């Protein structure tokens, strides 16, 4: 019996995932083995090393998205990254959206709401910030 559970995600930007991991204080290392129950391991193009006994393997799929694989046994992983990687995906979304908005010339501010959601406010005309700094629009 394997305790590894596979969940398809739509993570497409490894840099944004690295930013999310950095914010959570979790190392993400290339070409490593994720630890699972009973000393089982799962190879990862990247592995997010957790403080608990199990890790998260990150592997690029044929369609270009990255798949997260972990061992949910006994709630160790859930405690660190949330149910179904929720907290990790939340911060991935925050970093990805912020980076894309800045690339478009928006200024981004970030606030944590009472319910745990993170609100990003993007202001300023796209292109204006770039023009001011002498950059060019894509």
């Amino acid at each position, binding site marked *: 019996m394997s305790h590894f559970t596979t969940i398809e995600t739509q993570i497409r930007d490894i840099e944004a995932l690295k930013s999310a991991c950095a914010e959570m204080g979790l190392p993400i290392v290339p070409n490593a083995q994720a630890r699972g129950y009973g000393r089982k391991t799962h190879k990862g193009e990247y592995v997010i090393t957790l403080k608990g006994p199990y890790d998260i393997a990150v592997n690029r799929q044929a369609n270009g998205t990255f798949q997260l694989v972990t061992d949910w046994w006994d709630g160790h992983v859930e405690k660190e990254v949330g149910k179904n990687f929720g907290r990790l995906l939340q911060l991935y979304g925050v970093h990805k959206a912020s980076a894309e908005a800045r690339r478009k010339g928006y200024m981004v501010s970030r606030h944590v709401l009472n*319910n745990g*959601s993170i609100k990003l406010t993007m202001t300023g005309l796209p292109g204006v910030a770039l023009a001011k700094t002498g950059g060019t629009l894509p």
Partner: protein
Amino acid sequence: MTQKSIEVIVQPDGSLKIEAFGFVGADCEKATAFLEKALGAPCARRRKSEYYRVGIVRKTQGVRG
């Protein structure tokens, strides 16, 4: 004139809402398209289409027919 802005709310389960303010008509769709394309479905569970709440687009749908 309302200042143009975009709000993205990313929830603790990774799902998100995108809303644009101060954009007119098709500009609104254009304003948020890059985010929708980039973020698509960051959560393992696909969201229903009505989860996206793109305010001004919905308000101007009647005008555009």
